[in-house]
């Protein structure tokens, strides 16, 4: 009989031996659990075998390497985590983009709203590119996928959850797909590490320190870390880190840390990347039978639905025409001063203009501040703060509350 069938055969053994043998068997599951826990804990630590040894390089050389980077073909998986300190963008989209709701009811596959969702939470994306004519971007959902495919002038978007497709010619004013799409994406929505790095580098000036800060491994590739920090105080942006592939200069990871510390506000990077030619079939798309296809023209034709983003852009350009738009300071601590058309800002407490509950709600959202400028309310997120004064001015910038108050004081 098998040696491990002791329970049947040890009947005559003394009680203590039996108890000890019984107890000994339970060591097996405990040991298995322990080994599993140790493996889960240790494998990532071991795989992260320290930073790679790479020849020293200056920040200037590294930026040149990025600029010279000429990788036309790549495919990979990107993970984006955003924590801007605002509630989920998905539900707020309607209020941010007036008319977006209408467009949404026409086609859930229209790109504007989908890309907006990237601005909060953690998302996994797949990207693939083969030259300037073929790009693909997919947002992976649970059991569904949203794909944007650009292939030689044709742009398709497909939402598998609702089985709806959206079609546009890239010559149109509509979304352009792929890389082009990334540039026209709604402001503040990071898409690839490359776009993000370019944005950050554009801000370089006397106000900024740019250094090479060691090396790292990103998606299994050796990379240099470019560290960008504001020299001025008062900015809410603590540092921006860009990991750049040591061999071909492609930015692989982008991390934006707020100066208040804590989790990165934006963390976007490849978890897998491959610089060989992607499969040609991944850029071909024919709408599946029965899928509802919305043409970009149809969306345009629908009078009021006329491109929510366009309307928002009009609003923005209207803002720029304001007599009151005024930028205080420069570089990282720039603060925009905006006059609210039509006078007074938030109704002061007890003025009777708003119900008490609504007033409480507004007060709960912001902090009351006072200064030489008078008094107002500060609305805070992790990156952008806004000060709305009681006399109808708004100061907004990626700066701390104190810096906002100071800007408001100087503006007086």
């Amino acid at each position, binding site marked *: 009989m098998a040696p491990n069938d002791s*329970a*049947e055969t040890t009947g005559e053994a003394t009680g203590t031996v039996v108890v000890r*043998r019984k107890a000994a068997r339970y060591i097996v*599951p405990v040991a298995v659990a322990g080994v599993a826990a140790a493996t889960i804990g240790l494998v990532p630590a071991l795989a992260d075998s320290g930073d790679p040894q790479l020849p020293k390089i200056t920040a200037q050389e590294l930026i040149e390497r990025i600029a010279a980077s000429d990788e036309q073909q790549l495919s990979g998986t990107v993970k984006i985590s955003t924590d801007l300190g605002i509630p989920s963008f998905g539900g707020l989209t309607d209020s941010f983009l007036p008319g977006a709701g209408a467009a949404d009811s026409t086609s859930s596959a229209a790109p504007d709203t989908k890309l907006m969702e990237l601005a909060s939470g953690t998302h996994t994306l797949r990207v693939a590119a083969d030259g300037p004519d073929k790009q693909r971007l997919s947002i992976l959902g649970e*059991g569904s996928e949203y794909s944007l495919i650009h292939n030689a002038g044709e742009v398709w978007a497909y939402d598998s959850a609702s*089985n709806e497709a959206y079609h546009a010619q890239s010559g149109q004013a509509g979304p352009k797909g792929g890389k082009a799409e990334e540039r026209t994406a709604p402001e503040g929505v990071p898409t690839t590490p490359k776009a993000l790095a370019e944005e950050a580098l554009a801000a370089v000036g006397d106000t900024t320190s740019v250094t090479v800060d060691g090396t790292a491994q990103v998606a299994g590739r050796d990379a240099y870390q470019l560290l960008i920090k504001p020299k001025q105080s008062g900015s809410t942006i603590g540092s921006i880190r860009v990991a750049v592939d040591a061999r071909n200069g492609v930015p692989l990871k982008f991390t934006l840390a707020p100066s208040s510390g804590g989790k990165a506000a934006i963390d976007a990077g490849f978890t897998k990347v491959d610089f060989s030619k992607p499969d040609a079939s*991944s850029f071909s798309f024919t709408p599946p039978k029965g899928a509802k296809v919305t043409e970009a023209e149809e969306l345009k034709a629908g009078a009021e639905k006329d491109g929510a983003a366009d309307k928002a852009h009009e609003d923005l350009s209207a803002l720029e025409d304001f007599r009151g738009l005024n930028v205080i300071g420069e570089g990282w601590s720039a603060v925009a001063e905006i006059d609210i058309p039509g006078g007074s800002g938030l109704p002061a407490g007890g003025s009777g203009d708003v119900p008490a509950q609504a007033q409480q709600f507004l007060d709960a959202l912001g902090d009351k501040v006072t200064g030489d400028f008078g008094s107002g309310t500060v609305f805070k997120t992790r990156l952008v703060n806004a000060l709305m004064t009681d006399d109808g001015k708004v100061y907004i910038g990626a700066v701390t509350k104190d810096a906002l108050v100071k800007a408001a004081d100087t503006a007086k």
Partner: protein
Amino acid sequence: MSQAESVAAAPRVPRRALWTLGILRSELTMTLRRGRTLALLAVLAAVPVLVGIAVRIETGDGSGPGGGGGPAFLAQITNNGLFLVFAALSATLPVFLPMAVGVVAGDSVAGEASGGTLRYLLVAPAGRTRLLVAKYASVLVFCLVATAVVAVSALAVGAALFPVGEVTTISGTRIGFGEGLLRAGLIAVVVAASLTGFAALGLFVSTLTDSGIAAMAATVGVLITVQILDTMPQLEGIHPYLFPHYWLSFTDLLRDPVRWDEIVGNLGLQAVYAAVFGSAAWARFTTRDITV
């Protein structure tokens, strides 16, 4: 168990193997022939029929189902019956399938104990370890059978009520019907494998008590509790270690190219659960006093 196998003058090792096979065969026939098991399988087979008929009636006037609500893949069923397989598996995996497995696994040892048949099984010179292995193997076979019942029923209903043909993956690319079928088969296997960890847990619970009902209720209770924990955002830190967390990752097989990360993670997690609770069940079963 046939006496012929033990009296056959075969060498020792093959005779042991025959013994194990014999136990497994008798376990399997006992499990699969039981009225309760057949009722469970019938309920599982009915789910795709219900889903298929509901979608068919709703879209009978030619319009597609509105919006993207409900279980995944519902919107695609009208255009390709094969999607009923994926929809049915996503609908049954969170509750129906594991519940059926929980009933069978929870009953496997405790049911024998409460029926008073466990000691007769132990009289046969098979050894407790091999009996337990045979029990677990038959539960695993039940996982596969239950998944296959859902998939085959869904395929039959889907093909009968809806057109079939080229499959559009959720990435928007197209694959042939043959490859679509292949992926459906692979998905069924992955779904069955997703249940192995939970099956081991059920087996362990089953060795703890002499009451079959108590073991089944406890196993299904654990399932529900863990699934509730898996939805609580405050416990995000432990989610990756809960056995149902990656269950729906089988949908990644419908992407193009297939994304393996979570599927592999899921199978690894199931293997850990199977090892931990399997060995715990072994420790308990081989040391406990069987009095009934």
